């Protein structure tokens, strides 16, 4: 299999160009080449969304991308955030601050086994960022949460806590307007 040079930005750090097989899937790149195993392989087919990462677009928007069906070279030159990249860590590597979604998922016991958590955290984080640009009307709040998390599969806790935690974060961050 042919290969080509791949350069991208992972969790804020530029990754030096390296020769990567043309057809390598992003999840394999993260797991086997970068030892970042937090984006989890659930179905390997783009269905469960446990593997999603965030791509930060040049226009300041962010979006979810499923790494199990997307080639690593799709991300060439892009800025990518994985589940490992959200929390702020101190010098010893200990977590000093979670992002608001992570914190709320922890506080509300949103996950049990946590295998699906990377997908839910990333999807909800993208939603927060989207609403930071354009808040949502109260009447649409539940719908935007459904649209954002509705495709994700969780087999342990039945979605209730993920959904309510996300709704609560959006409200607390002032991203919900009257209407």
């Amino acid at each position, binding site marked *: 299999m042919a290969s*080509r040079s791949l350069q991208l930005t992972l969790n804020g750090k530029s990754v030096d160009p390296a020769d990567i097989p*043309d*057809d390598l*899937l992003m999840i394999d790149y993260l797991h086997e080449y970068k030892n970042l195993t937090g984006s989890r392989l659930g179905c390997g*087919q*783009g*269905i469960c969304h446990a593997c999603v990462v965030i791509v930060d677009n040049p226009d300041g928007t962010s979006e979810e991308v499923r790494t*199990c*069906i*997307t*080639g690593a*070279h*799709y991300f060439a030159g892009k800025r990518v955030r994985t589940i490992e990249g959200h929390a702020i860590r101190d010098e010893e590597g200990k977590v000093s601050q979670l992002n608001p979604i992570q914190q709320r998922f922890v506080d509300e016991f949103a996950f049990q086994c946590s295998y699906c958590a990377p997908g839910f955290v990333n999807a909800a984080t993208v939603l927060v960022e989207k609403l930071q640009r354009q808040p949502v009307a109260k009447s649409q709040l539940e719908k935007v949460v459904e649209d954002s998390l509705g495709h994700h599969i969780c087999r342990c806790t039945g979605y209730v806590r993920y959904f309510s935690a996300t709704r609560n974060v959006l409200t607390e961050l002032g991203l919900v307007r009257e209407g």
Partner: protein
Amino acid sequence: MKHPLLRTAMAVGLAASGVFAHAETQVERGEYLTRAADCMACHTAKGGAPYAGGLPIDSPFGTIYGTNITPSKDHGIGLYNDDEFFAALNEGIRRDGANLYPAMPYTSYHRVTREDSDAIHAYLKTVEPIERAAPETSLGFPFNVRMGITAWNLLYGDGVPLESAEGKSEAWQRGQYLVDVLGHCGECHTPRGMTGAMQPDKRMMGAVLGGYLAPSLLANDLAERGWNQDDLSSFLKLGMSDQGAMFNEMYPVFHNSTQYLADPDLNAIATFLLGEQPPEAKVLTEVALDELSTSAQRGRQQYLNVCAGCHAVSGEGKPHIAVAMRGNTTLRLDDPRNLLRVIEDGIDEQQFTGFERMQPMPGFADKLDQQELTDLLNYLRQTWGGTDSDLALADVQALQQEAGSE
């Protein structure tokens, strides 16, 4: 009634077919015919009760709503007798004497036999009456004037002209009745003129509908795209075959209609469409990467980036997940429109028969820029589509513009 003999022959043909051997009652026959005529397509709203109407149908003249044809006396056709039902089906004349909008394919249904019409009516009388009025259709002038339709009707007063059945087999004749009459396939696959009527001289030659091409169903064109009779009939039965899976407007046709047809009827359709002596289906061999154009060679990386995860690196697809690119009929259309639209729009999850449930295909409109799209189209079309010519960036832009302006 121009061809009384023909109609009798067809009616006999159908009645004698295996299909009705186990359709013992008139109602069972009617249910089957209702499926074959795909009444559900327009008369059932998404997620709605069967035949209760309410489906919005976009036409160039405005939105037409499918009507309630359940036996509700207030809102449906509960007051129709068989004569009145036959008039509506065959002539497009409502019980109160008004003309139906031509979204009702009565020009195709014009040749439905009285016996079949009665059977369909008998069946519709058994469905649950839904006491709800379908939304009122309101069209722009002159189509808001039902009398204006009379003029339209003049063009097709006697229904869609049919090819002569002389010397054709029983299967072919049955196929013709199913395709041209009950199935009203031409309503989408035949281009329409300015008035909205099908162009008689371009029968089944393919037409653009909602940004997608309903491709030509002419025998040679089908064969050119890789179709043989067996594959065609199983495509109608299962919604999928080696040539791909149904999508866009054809998916509901499969879902509501063709999957319910009996094998002899599906074979009849294939016989009619491909002819008694079908042309040889064209087999393509995959073209190696180094024989592709520069654009197509670039396109390979786009394929690996966003397509191969499901359609596989070598294009064989994944069983029960995503169709193969190799042998795919959509890649072989001269017009790249459908391929482009599918890539940009994606396809929702589709339930086929049994446990076949193809996963949703994401749309890539915002993932690929125009050059990447062009390269990808060239890669797909040249590797597995049998073309050696490049689409230019401008071609793709033009198609995008066309879709955007709709």
